[in-house]
C-alpha cells in the first residue's frame, strides 16, 4: 500500500476572471518510507495538491489517499496518518508553545503526550521557548513550532510545504537533520521546495509540476541524467545573441548553457564572439537539478502552448 496516492486529481477554482484549472488529472503514488520532492514554479499547483491531500480543499475530480484512507470519505483515519507543516507562518496568539502543542495532541485524542512534546521541543531547539507566548517568537522560531505541531501525533506521512522559505541556515540544518532522522525511522516525507539543491540532496524521487500537470516523475538520479550532462558557464557584460539567450540560464553576469561536447562548446563561443560580446571566467561543469528543471519547464510550456494553439485552430 502506498503512503500517498493521487488518482486523477483535478481542481478548478471559480475566479472573477473565469475558471482557473489549478490541477489537471494529477496521478502518482509515494511509497512508504520515501523522501519525495514535489517541485514546480510558483502557481504550478503544489500547494493546491497538498491542500487536497490534507482535506483543506476538495478536489473537483479524482481520489487522494493516505495509507489507503480516502481523504474525503475516511478523513479521520487519513488525517491521523498525515502531519502537515503549512507554508504560511500562522499561530494562535492566545497561547504558549507548550499549550499549543498540548491542545494539538488533544485534538487527535492523545492524552499525556508530555514526553513526546519534550522530545520535539528538544529536537527542534525550542526547549527554552516552551513557555513563551507564540507572539513573542521570531519568524524562524514560529516555523519550528509549526513543524512540532505537525508532528505531535507521530504521523506516518510528513508533508512540508516550503519549510525553508525565508529561514536561516541554522534552522535549515536542524530541520533537515530532524526530518532525515524521522525518515530513516520509517516516516514518509513529502517536501515542496524552491531550493533545488535541497531537493537534490534530500529527495530520492521527484515529481515536477507545471501549470497543474505532472511533467516529470522519476528518481532524482535519473532526472539528473536526462539533461545535457555538461554546462558551459561564463561571465559577460554584453548582450547575448537571441538564439543563445532563450536557452541560457542567466543570473546577473553569469550565463549558463547546456553543452554536451567540445563541438557544442565551440559553437556557442563562436556565436558569442561573432556577436561582439566578450566573455571571461569560462568553465564547464556537471548539470544540476536546476538545469533539468528549466529544460523540462520550457519543454512543457512549449508543448502546452502548441496544444492550446491547436485547440483554438480546431
Amino acid at each position: 500500500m502506498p503512503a500517498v496516492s493521487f488518482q486523477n486529481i483535478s481542481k478548478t477554482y471559480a475566479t472573477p476572471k473565469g475558471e482557473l484549472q489549478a490541477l489537471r488529472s494529477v496521478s502518482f503514488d509515494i511509497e512508504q518510507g520515501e523522501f519525495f520532492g514535489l517541485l514546480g514554479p510558483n502557481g504550478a499547483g503544489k500547494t493546491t495538491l497538498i491542500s487536497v491531500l490534507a482535506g483543506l480543499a476538495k478536489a473537483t475530480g479524482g481520489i487522494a489517499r493516505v495509507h489507503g484512507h480516502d481523504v474525503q470519505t475516511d478523513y479521520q483515519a487519513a488525517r491521523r496518518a498525515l502531519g502537515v507543516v503549512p507554508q504560511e507562518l500562522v499561530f494562535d496568539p492566545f497561547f504558549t508553545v507548550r499549550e499549543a502543542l498540548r491542545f494539538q495532541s488533544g485534538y487527535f485524542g492523545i492524552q499525556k503526550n508530555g514526553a513526546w512534546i519534550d522530545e520535539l521541543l528538544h529536537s527542534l531547539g525550542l526547549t527554552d521557548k516552551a513557555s513563551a507566548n507564540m507572539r513573542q517568537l521570531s519568524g524562524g522560531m514560529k516555523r519550528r513550532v509549526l513543524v512540532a505541531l505537525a508532528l505531535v501525533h507521530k504521523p506516518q506521512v510528513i508533508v512540508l510545504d516550503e519549510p525553508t522559505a525565508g529561514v536561516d541556515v541554522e534552522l535549515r540544518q536542524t530541520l533537515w537533520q530532524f526530518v532525515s532522522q524521522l525518515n530513516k525511522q520509517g516516516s514518509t516525507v513529502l517536501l515542496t521546495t524552491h531550493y533545488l539543491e535541497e531537493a537534490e540532496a534530500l529527495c530520492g524521487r521527484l515529481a515536477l509540476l507545471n501549470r497543474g500537470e505532472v511533467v516529470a516523475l522519476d528518481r532524482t538520479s535519473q532526472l539528473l541524467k536526462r539533461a545535457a550532462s555538461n554546462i558551459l558557464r561564463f561571465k559577460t557584460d554584453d548582450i547575448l545573441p537571441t538564439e543563445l539567450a532563450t536557452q541560457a540560464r542567466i543570473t546577473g553576469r553569469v550565463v549558463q548553457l547546456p553543452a554536451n561536447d567540445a563541438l557544442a562548446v565551440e559553437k556557442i563561443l563562436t556565436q558569442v564572439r561573432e556577436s561582439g560580446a566578450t566573455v571571461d571566467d569560462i568553465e564547464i561543469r556537471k548539470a544540476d537539478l536546476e538545469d533539468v528543471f528549466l529544460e523540462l519547464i520550457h519543454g512543457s510550456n512549449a508543448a502546452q502552448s502548441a496544444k492550446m494553439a491547436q485547440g483554438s485552430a480546431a
Partner: protein
Amino acid sequence: MNGWQMLFYKEILRFWKVGFQTVAAPVITAILYMMIFGHVLEGRVQVYDSVSYTAFLLPGLVMMSVLQNAFANSSSSLIQSKVMGNLVFLQLTPLSHRAWFVAYVGSSVVRGMAVGAGVMLVTWWFARPPFAEPLWILVFGFMGAALLGGLGLIAGLWAEKFDQMAAFQNFVIMPMTFLSGVFYSIHSLPEIWQRVSHLNPFFYMIDGFRYGFFGVSDVSPWLSLVLVGGALAVVSAIGLHLLRTGYKTRH
C-alpha cells in the same frame, strides 16, 4: 480528554485568558444600564403590578448580556482564527463537524452564563426580583446562550473580515436584542409594534427568562419554550451543515 473536550477546554481558556475584556467589561456595561435606566425610569414606567421597574429590568439585562456574549464568543473566536490563519491547525485534525459544533457552542454557553451570573451578582444590590420558577431561568438561559452561540458560529464561518462581523452584530444582533423587550414590557407598546415584537425570536427568550423570575410574562412560557427550541434546532442544523460541508473553510 477526547478531541472535542480539548477544543471545548481551549475555547473556554481562550476567553478566560482575556477575562477582563470578555467577562468583566460586559458586567460593567450592565451596571451602567441598570444605574441610568433604573434611575430615569423608576416609577415612570408601569410594568407588571407590584413589580418595580428596576426589578423588571434586571432579568432583561442579564439575558441581554448572556445573549450578546454567547454570540461574541463563537463569532470572534472563529473570525480571529480565520484572519490569523490558525484555523488550519483545527482543520488538519480528525475532529468531526459535531465536535466543532459542540466545542464552539458549548464554550459560548459557558461564557454567556458566566457573564449572566456576574451581572446578576452585581445588580443584586439594585433590586431583588423573586426567583419564582428557577428551573425556567436555567432552561431559557441555556437555550438562549446556545442559540446565540450557534448564530455566532454561523456568522463566524460566513464573515471573511472583521467589518462584516461588526455589521452582522450591529445590524442584526443588537437591534433584535434591544427591540425584544429588555427595557420594557411589550404590553406598553402600540398594538402594531406588539405584533412586530411577536415576530422577533429574541422576545420569547427574554420573556420566558423573565417568567422564571416573576412567574408572569407577556406570553405563555410554554409557547416561548417551543419557539426558542424550534429556533435552536434550525440554527443548529444550519451550523452543523456548514461545518460538515466546509462552508468557506475548505475550498
